[in-house]
């Protein structure tokens, strides 16, 4: 039981590493953004799982009953983070569209090759 109680962090780490692997090993820009999003969602799971109390319920107050509520503070933080995340993702996708207009490709290697040709 000593070790089993940590499984939520392990799920988080595996997901985070999936996203990390995509970001560093793939050259396609849309794929990189999907990887960043997987990374981001894994962090959400980390925060939400920290706020959970065993036997607790959602933090919506019920009058006259003695219940355990899960911690509302991480929920608030993650609500903000999700909205900021979609804002940054859409900005990144807009950049991808512009890069495609300028270079005709969304593969990182081809973009590098083209800009090196231009500088020569």
């Amino acid at each position, binding site marked *: 039981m000593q070790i089993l109680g*940590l*499984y939520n*962090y*392990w*799920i988080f*780490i595996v*997901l*985070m590493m*999936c*996203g990390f*692997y*995509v970001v*560093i*090993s*793939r*050259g*396609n820009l*849309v*794929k990189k953004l*999907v990887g960043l*999003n997987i990374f981001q*969602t894994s962090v*959400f*799971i980390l925060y*939400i*799982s*920290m706020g*959970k*109390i065993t036997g*607790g319920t959602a*933090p*919506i*107050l*019920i*009058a006259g009953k003695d219940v355990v*509520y*899960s*911690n*509302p*503070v*991480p*929920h*608030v933080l993650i*609500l*903000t983070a*999700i909205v*900021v*995340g*979609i*804002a*940054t*993702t*859409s*900005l990144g*996708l*807009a*950049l991808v*569209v*512009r890069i495609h207009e300028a270079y005709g490709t969304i*593969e990182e290697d081809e973009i590098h090759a083209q800009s090196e040709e231009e500088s020569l």
Partner: protein
Amino acid sequence: MVTAVAAVRLRDLFAVVMLFGIYSLVSASLFVVMDAVDVAFTEASVGAGVATVFMLGTLSLTTHREKTPIARKPLLSLLVVIITGAALMYGTYDIPHYGDANDPIHHHVAPHYLEDSMEEIGIPNVVSSVLASYRGYDTLGETTVVFTAAIGVLILIGGARRRSKRDDERS
């Protein structure tokens, strides 16, 4: 988790984006299990809905086939990922256990919010009262970020369109 791994492996970007939508939906249901209903709503609508639509829009404007990568040292990046993951795993041994009510996180401001927010704010949903009242400045900052991002997207896409139209007229 399986959908995330599949999204990593696939080459067809359309399928990748679809799998990403499914992954978001699955994580939203995970949030419901972990008592975060408000977060689950937002994740299902924003993560699975809007993000997928944006990505599909980008794919329709660009291309939907990922080229087979030209040897980008997959072994090296796999090694980096495994080392980082192992270091993080080692770090978890000092972290409090899942679902434990005695965690330090549950003994700072959270009890105050849960006990007094009904008198001070008057909304039964504690998440809303913290979001809109106790941490209202955070939410204001968040709206600023979204506004800035919207301006950025408009400049990047809209500005470029107008410029190319002007070039067409000149030539």
